[in-house]
């Protein structure tokens, strides 16, 4: 390969690396989401008319932490935490508390099982 093409490709490589860095740095800027539940308050998901108020709630934990949240519901249903496979009934106007260790990594849904309505997106980072 001659030096001209080498230089051409070095140029392309620099550009691509620059783009990669840009993407990476941009991601770091918005990377403040990991400490969403570090404040010590127990997150409460409020269900109104069978739907989560404010949309599907994102909860993020690291592996090994304790996952603790409360569901306040105005409808009677079963709250199913998928992946961890924990199911708890909640009555209309009642509330139910979840408290379990984050042992499985990944992204999981909790839903109102009978309504097939997702209420929580649970992320467990390694």
């Amino acid at each position: 390969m001659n030096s001209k093409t080498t230089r051409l490709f070095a140029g392309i490589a620099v550009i691509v690396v620059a783009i990669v860095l840009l993407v990476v740095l941009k991601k770091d800027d918005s990377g403040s989401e990991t400490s969403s539940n570090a404040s010590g308050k127990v997150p409460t998901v409020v269900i109104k008319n069978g739907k989560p108020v404010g949309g599907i709630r994102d909860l993020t934990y690291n592996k090994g932490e304790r996952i603790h949240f409360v569901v306040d519901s105005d409808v009677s249903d079963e709250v199913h935490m998928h992946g961890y496979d924990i199911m708890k009934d909640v009555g209309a106007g009642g509330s139910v508390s979840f408290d379990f260790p984050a042992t499985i990594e990944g992204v999981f849904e909790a839903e109102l099982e009978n309504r097939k309505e997702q209420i929580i997106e649970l992320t467990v980072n390694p």
Partner: protein
Amino acid sequence: MNLVLPLAHALVARKDLPIPAWLFAWGASIVLIVSFFALSAAWRKPRFEEERWRPLGAGVSAVLMSMGAQALCGAIGVFLLGFSIYAGIDGTEAPDRNFALTFIFVTAWLGFPLFSVILGDVFRPFNPWRAIGRVVGGAFSAVAGQRPAHLDYPEKLGRWPAAIGLLAVVWLEVVYGASGGVAVGLSPDSAGLAALIYSLYTLAMMAVFGVEKWCETGEIFSVYFGMFSQLGLFGVEEGRLGRRLPLSAATHWATLPGSAAVVIASIASTSFDGAQEGAFKSGILQTFEWLAETGLSLTASLRLTDTIFMALCFAGVGLVYMIGVRGMATVRGAPPLKKLRTGFAHTLIPIAFAYLVAHYFSLFVFQEQAQFTYLLSDPLGTATTDLFGTASSGIDFKLLSANAIWYVQVGALVIGHVIGLTLAHDRATAYWGDYRQAARSQYWMLAVMVAFTCFGLYLLSVANA
């Protein structure tokens, strides 16, 4: 307007975490370094154009290719197809408790590409429609005393029916269920019915054009799985099993028209499935809301939105490939555009396979635990059957750590990239007599491969984020 996507979780109770930024950066850097190395350490004469096929021991072929073995495999295939249709239509509507969905869209749809690469064209003996077609054809010959007559297959169509069919399968799997971004959104009932309709269509086409002809060109699963089998070490020639130079068979695969469309459809549909729950998520939501506000029903809006994005994926992947081909055509001594277009299609097969591994590896590992435990013991999901005593087993999601999944994903993309480059460079040395021009033409394919691999990495980095 307060619109909520009609969500329904289907098969998967767990989704992959996005790959972390540092791994994304490392992956992309390795891809670049590897690509440079490929340019400087290139060979000058084609190495993969000849298969150098050698038969395995006669005993192995005699057993594995015997009429009895073929009949047994065919019978297993027909049984599993029939059972899937039955389970889908008659079993529970809970997608994760019904044998049919996992068997069709995970075990078969993802398992056959994997085992085809490792073992060769394993789908062929198990192909239920081929088995039925051969039995019916044989019976016809015995009764009528002559071979069944067939129409000539329009050669121009080539593998286009399979390419379109491939998109249709993924459309059915991901879009039709209109479940808003879950892996398999289809209801078991629809899956069973679709399998039944596809069986009737396939058998009709086989009757019209002949069993083997249709398997070679139009039968989606034969063409799709057969494509991946071209990468591997094992192949059948003249009724005998043999070993060949890995990757070499792929160099002769894309000779039929529409072959490039099959590979592009594969990459595009996997991209779409990955992007809909990450990169395209907000775009899909916006389009969906816009369509829903025009008065379309929610389901129709979501289906239409997903269809548009899937079509865009196909167009986008095709466009990148065509830019590469057009670029190569500008290099002195280039063969005609048409020859280039088909001549480099096979170099995307490793990329297509890498995309499959990257996007479905964890789904396959987790869902196969279900397949071989509770879905086997209680295939209809009745909650009262327990054939093998494993009906109450669950999926162990701790089997794979997030890190293990990330490394497999990135590793698959990088390896696919290297193999794609290898095949492209090899083909260039065959097409351009002059080594320097061959190397020059490959700047274009290198750009194509880097684009696909970095796009794949990007999709992983924003998956489910």
